[in-house]
């Protein structure tokens, strides 16, 4: 087989190997299914609880996408604002870092007090946990425009808006997509935390109920579903990224 076929197969082979190792470890060391269920037991749970897993996964996907969408819009706007002005950057930086340092689990009770139990707390938790990387990366992309590029633009009489739209935004797109991949997984963490504490639906809620029943295989099944959802959304971001910022991966395109 050629190197490139191996490269294409590698993700599948590694994943299969991972689960085989896991299964083997459980059998060889006779680990109790209550501590760490083997993949076969998790598979059985996946089949047995298909329906609740499916509906709750759909709910979580929906919560996460909504929160993630909010954080793209808000993160992009704030990132553009912060990146375009040194004054705003200096002023907002400590606030943003401080806000990001707050554990979001601690915010959920506040959200419950404000909005009650329901779909808003998971969405908002997903949002607050995932917007920070977007802000930072977009701001960095804008703040690192080469001075010569700016000179060329200014000497032509370009306004700040021209420089922003023609140079700043396209230039910060690769940074944005880098941030989106971090943010999307964070958004899942956020929505699940929200569902665990303030929702009657979603995988987070399912995990809470399963752990109350000591149904360990179901907990793991829910975690696997979450992982799959995460891979799925990151793959979507990847596709969009390759469409929009292929120029930033020039070495790959140069070989093609």
């Amino acid at each position, binding site marked *: 087989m050629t190197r490139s076929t191996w490269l294409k197969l590698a993700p599948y082979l590694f994943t299969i190997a991972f689960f085989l190792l896991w299964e083997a470890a459980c059998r060889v060391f006779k680990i109790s299914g209550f501590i760490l269920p083997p993949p076969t037991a998790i598979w059985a749970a996946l089949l047995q609880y298909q329906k609740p897993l499916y509906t709750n996964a759909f709910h979580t996907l929906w919560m996460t996408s909504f929160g993630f969408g909010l954080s793209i819009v808000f993160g992009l706007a704030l990132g553009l604002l912060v990146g375009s002005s040194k004054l705003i950057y200096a002023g907002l930086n400590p606030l943003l870092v401080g806000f990001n340092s707050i554990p979001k689990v601690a915010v959920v009770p506040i959200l419950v007090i404000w909005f009650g139990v329901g779909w808003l707390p998971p969405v908002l938790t997903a949002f607050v946990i995932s917007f920070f990387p977007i802000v930072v990366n977009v701001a960095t992309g804008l703040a690192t425009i080469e001075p010569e590029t700016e000179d060329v633009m200014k000497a032509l*009489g370009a306004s700040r808006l021209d420089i922003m739209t023609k140079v700043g935004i396209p230039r910060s797109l690769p940074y944005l997509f880098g941030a989106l991949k971090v943010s999307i997984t964070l958004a899942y963490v956020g929505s699940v935390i929200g569902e665990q504490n303030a929702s009657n639906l979603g995988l987070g809620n399912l995990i809470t109920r399963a752990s109350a029943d000591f149904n360990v295989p179901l907990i793991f099944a829910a975690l696997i579903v979450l992982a799959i959802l995460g891979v799925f959304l990151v793959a979507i971001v990847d596709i969009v990224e390759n469409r929009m910022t292929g120029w930033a991966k020039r070495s790959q395109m140069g070989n093609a």
Partner: protein
Amino acid sequence: MTAFVELHDVTHVYGGGDGPPAVEALSLKVREGEFAAIVGPSGCGKSTMMKLATGLQRPKSGTVIVAGKQVVEPIKITGMAFQNPVMLPWRTTLENLLLPLEIVQPHRSRLRSHKAEYVARAEGLLETVGLKGMGSKFPWQLSGGMQQRASLCRSLIHEPKLLMLDEPFGALDAFTREELWCVIRDLHAQRGVTVILVTHDLREAVFLADRVFCMSARPGRIIAEREVTFARPRDLEVTYTPEFAAIVHELRGHISAARQAA
């Protein structure tokens, strides 16, 4: 002599404070259509002078006049090219060339409706610099010399009255550099544009320019002005004549003196 670009007794301090001036009591005049070169030891404020002339920087004192008007904001009749070609990597070469037209009036409002005409103009320019058919390539698919040619095209696409070149060939190998000298020479001859070239290559300055200014070390000022009267169009052969060598040697003397004074 009527000057097209005139700097009179200009002093500039970066940051607007009381720090050491980058240029001090700098005066020079360049006529319309003239090719001027500015040479000097590194860090002498050559690039500062360029920013002052285009209005990217405002002088602390003194006046800058371009095309009969005092410069108080970035003037839009200039094209610029730098040592770093600064092409935008997400645009093809052709789209990079069209960038100034998206900003400068009247092209800005005409670009959409007269796209074909402007594209033809850009392709014509690419052809004159030897990049025919390269418009669809991305800049990072071009060599350094080709990028620099494209950058020259971009600086000329909106038909500026004044072309500012800041060590545009500094990062290129000697042969490519001499090729591009000829490209610039021909562009200047065709278009009658006023050119100010900042360089530290004395042969480049003498080969291309009608008038060479020598700057002193920081704070920069003009310490010598030399007219170069070789007939145009000049052939690269002229650079091997004794007369040419004599002028280069003379300028070399000024720069050495400036470096020692620093």
